[in-house]
């Protein structure tokens, strides 16, 4: 007997879900580096401040971190860092 697996969303879909929420909370998302990885609890999408090349200049700050369900695209956890 075969089992039927639920289709999972693509990484593009996951990014779009995160981006849709992030743009409502953060002004300029171009300043962020986006990390996306799959963990046991779902897709993690984490926006981290992109640091200047000059090692004597650093930006303190934060972006949103999400955990997103791989099947239905629901955001199961979000943290808005500042």
């Amino acid at each position: 007997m075969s089992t039927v697996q639920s289709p999972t969303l693509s990484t593009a879909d996951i990014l779009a879900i995160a981006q849709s929420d992030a743009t409502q909370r953060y002004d300029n998302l171009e300043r962020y580096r986006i990390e996306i990885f799959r963990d046991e609890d779902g897709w993690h999408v984490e926006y981290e401040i992109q640091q200047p090349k000059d090692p004597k200049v650093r930006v303190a700050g934060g972006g949103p971190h999400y955990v997103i369900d791989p099947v239905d695209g629901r955001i199961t956890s979000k943290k808005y860092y500042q």
Partner: protein
Amino acid sequence: MDLISARRLMEHPTVKAAFEAAWADSFAEDEVLRHEEGGWIILENASGMLTIRRELPGTRNSITFHYPDLDSSLSALAIYHTHPTPPELGEIPDPSPADRSISREWKLTSFVIAESAIFIINPLGTVSSGEVR
């Protein structure tokens, strides 16, 4: 700087005044004007006197630090900045991963001033539980 020294530094009148000024200038209660403020705590080595160097105002969720060019009579002790967005708006007051990595990279103590607590990040990037403001 260890945690006890950092807590003692927080109680210094110059530092307390700097933290209060930064918080006031952050307009935490104004949805439009709210932004991060911060600066440097500088030690005059010979006298032991502390001075403050402010950075330019930041955005709602970031502030840029420029490592100061200091002569040998001065030492950079710590940096500080505010997290003015209240938790009830969904943003968490705790230091961000970038906040912690700056302390690690520059081997500096950092203070993060939030609405009801001041977090201390040690030079290893570890955050102490928030000190009540």
